[in-house]
């Protein structure tokens, strides 16, 4: 019961923080709101009984990505250029309303259909031991494949930032 109450509080806060991240005029506020949302997401993982994922979420998203975002924002000095209040066109508002209607319909249809898959109810499902065991045994190939994606990220960065001397 307490889990349910905590979940709904977190979920509402999560939607509010992300909404603020989208509509905030100042990019620094947007980034900070996103950091708050990352924290709340990690709390959702805690509620689901996945402490390892929660810690990873905080370390990687808040510790690394958010800081990187802030650095980039400060480097480009976006503050001045985009401080004007955002104007909403009727078409934008219409698309927001449409999205909300679709989400409500989807929620209405999904009542009672979605249930937790079997695996989630196993004790220790999200523990570090279990994650490591699954990652290096059943998910060995996807794990290795992910390293290739990181490698390609480096290649891509080289493509755009490499200095050159004209031939």
């Amino acid at each position, binding site marked *: 019961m307490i889990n349910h109450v905590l979940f709904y509080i977190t979920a509402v806060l999560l939607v509010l923080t992300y909404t603020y991240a989208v509509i905030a005029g100042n990019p620094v506020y947007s980034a900070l709101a996103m950091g708050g949302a990352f924290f709340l997401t990690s709390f959702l993982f805690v509620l689901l009984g996945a402490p390892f994922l929660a810690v990873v979420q905080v370390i990687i998203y808040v510790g690394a990505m958010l800081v990187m975002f802030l650095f980039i924002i400060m480097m480009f000095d976006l503050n001045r250029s985009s401080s004007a209040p955002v104007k909403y066109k009727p078409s934008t508002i219409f698309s927001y309303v449409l999205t909300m209607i679709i989400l409500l319909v989807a929620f209405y*249809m999904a009542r009672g*259909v979605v249930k937790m*898959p079997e695996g989630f109810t196993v004790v220790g499902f999200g523990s570090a031991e279990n994650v490591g065991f699954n990652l290096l*045994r059943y998910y060995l*190939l996807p794990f290795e*494949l992910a390293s*290739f994606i990181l490698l390609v990220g480096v290649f891509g960065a080289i*493509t755009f930032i490499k200095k050159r001397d004209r031939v």
Partner: protein
Amino acid sequence: MYVDVNYTAILPQIIIAATLFISAMADAFTSTRKWPVGMIALLGIGAGIGSSIYLWGDKIISFSQMISMDEFSLLFFITVMIAGFITVLISLKYVDDVESDAGHFYLLLLSSLLGMMFLVSATNLIVIVLGLELMSFSIYPLVGFTRDRQVSLEGAMKYLVLGAFATAFLLYGIALLYSVLGTTNLYTIAKILSTSQNPTGNMVMMAGVALILIGFSFKVALVPFHAWTPDAYQGAPAPITGFMAAAVKAASFAAIIKVVIVVMSSYHVPVAEAMWWLSAVTMFTGNIIAVMQKNVKRMLAYSSIAHAGYVVVGLVSGNAYGMSSAVFYLISYTFTITGSFAIITYLEKNDGTGTELSDFSGLSKTHPVLSIIMAVFMLSLAGIPPTAGFMAKFYVFSSAIKSGYTGLAIFGILTSVISLYYYLRIVYAMYFEEPEEKANMPVPAGISAGVIIALWGVIQLGILPSDIMNLAMQSIQSLLH
């Protein structure tokens, strides 16, 4: 503790990955001219094609049912690797001309090939996502490779943003599917669906399937998910445009055939109606907008959208013959479009101009052989015998008629009559218009070789299509069992 590892199951992938690392080392130890790196890439891709032919007929499922090496995977390995081979061949001179010290061009090409190969051989949705991402992340920088040109960067940016959007759709669909079925393993999903009484009654699952279909539709550029295509195709360097139209499309279609058609449609999940509309709208829109284009790269971008529509015609019926015809279509399109873009690569100048329709004026006077070959490619794209394009369209439409989709087949034939107009305009420009200037530079050896391979494929598939069609049939059969 036992871990299910069988390296034979990923032998072609290992060869390409090894080539990637060897090329990276070669890149570090060569001068600013990077054609030796390209040569190593060529050797590696050749070895990959050889190993795929050698493994033909085996079926190995390994890595905890993450990967299946069967005829379906191998046929698509060979298709994308031929596209990669031709692309490297035609880029050998181009890359050194537009950018100095640019070995990463070949590295990105190889890693995108690697991603495609994991994408087509995956039997788990997680591997499909990772393969798709590896492929896409390698293509984004390649589109913006000529970074001095505004259009190139614009195309890369649009492709990146919409590609991320498509991945979000795909992931959300997979999450919904997982929430209902509790697994991402395609074999298990097929088993659950075959025993379930009423799989379509579950709206969440249907939404998941729809989102997955939308995610893939972005990648193969079906209307209305095609908005990125013209800008990305026009902005990309010409060899990469050909590679995207051929290999990226083929690999993404392989994933559609595997996930949406075989796993879902065989078990009475109604995707046929959605496919019907997607293909009709795609064929119509692609061909109509292509008529108005003045730039040949942009014209072929819209034509590639239309061709994706023709492939879907084969998938609508959802039976083995229809899917085989779609596979045949993808192979024939691979040869035709890489060949066309080999010639466009030759015509494209270093600053990205030279691909307007007027640049083809009087090409027959300066390059008679090249003009005849370009005309053959254009006739193949339009679907005129005795070329590969005709046989491909013939198989696709006959599969639709056999399954009772006569209306769609007639609509497809009508749209390909429209397409005749803009393909023949290129031929008209080459033969009946006067050249503006007489610039007669020699055709590089790499481009000649690439054009000859593509021409051989177009003629071979046009005159003796049954061999390749049998291979396509075998590959689909290996998927169904």
